[in-house]
């Protein structure tokens, strides 16, 4: 039960990190140049953006949760279970970020989720 709860927290934290990072990067605007000057300017704006900072917090939560659950559960169980993030992330993209998910994209996402699960089985 505690393992299932931890995996739910890990998946939700990972999806939340992706959603906040996306929100933050959209506020910052499209990054089209890779000149060092432009990259430093974007990095400075990113580090002062609340959504990007929240994303980092959720990334830290995800990593901590992952390490904690690995102290008693097998990686071969934890890794495939966390592949659910592709589905949760896509649902969040639809309902939180307002993206349009076509049938093709859904089918592709489900195959990716299943594939990552299979790859993680030893």
């Amino acid at each position, binding site marked *: 039960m505690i393992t299932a709860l931890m995996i739910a927290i890990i998946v939700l934290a990972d999806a939340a990190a*992706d*959603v906040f*990072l*996306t929100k933050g*990067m*959209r*506020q*910052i*605007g*499209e*990054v*089209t140049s890779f000149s060092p000057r432009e*990259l430093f300017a974007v990095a400075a*704006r*990113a580090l002062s*953006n*609340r959504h990007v900072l929240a994303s980092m917090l959720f990334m830290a939560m995800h990593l901590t949760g992952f390490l904690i659950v690995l102290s008693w559960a097998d990686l071969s169980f934890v890794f495939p279970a966390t592949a659910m*993030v*592709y589905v949760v*992330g*896509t649902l*969040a*993209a*639809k309902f939180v*970020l*307002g*993206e*349009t*998910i*076509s049938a*093709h*994209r859904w*089918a*592709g*996402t*489900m*195959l*990716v*989720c*299943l*594939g*990552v*699960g*299979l*790859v*993680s*089985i*030893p």
Partner: protein
Amino acid sequence: MRTRTEQTEIIALLGIAIVSQAIGNVLLSQGMKSISEASPLVWSDWGVIFLRVLDTPSIPFGVGFLIIFFVLFATTLSRADLSFVLPAISSEVIVNVACANYFLQETVSATRWLGVVLISIGVVLVVRSSPKTFGIEREPVVAWEKVDR
């Protein structure tokens, strides 16, 4: 709908991000294995482990490649859907399996190769869709900074 050039650029950025992450992971894996093979790790001596990590060139290089990955991941999220980038970036798993098999001589089972095939089909399906369906507010950065504070 984006132009074909923009779509190609986004896919190229994701491609470089995926390769950077795979190289970073292989370097980190090689570095950590070489450290633990040299002498067993005692986790209570974290200071000693930290110094050994810094003294193993492949680890700082690996971290450098992972930083490149993160910059490119964030960049593509500024230009494309999360629901496009998230499954597309999973091709990292395919590159990781191939790298583990080729560079680290790890055995890859038939189940894993089947997983790789499913991911490949899934990524092709996702990449064929338009990378951007959201509407970015094209406000100048100065205006955003005022709003966000």
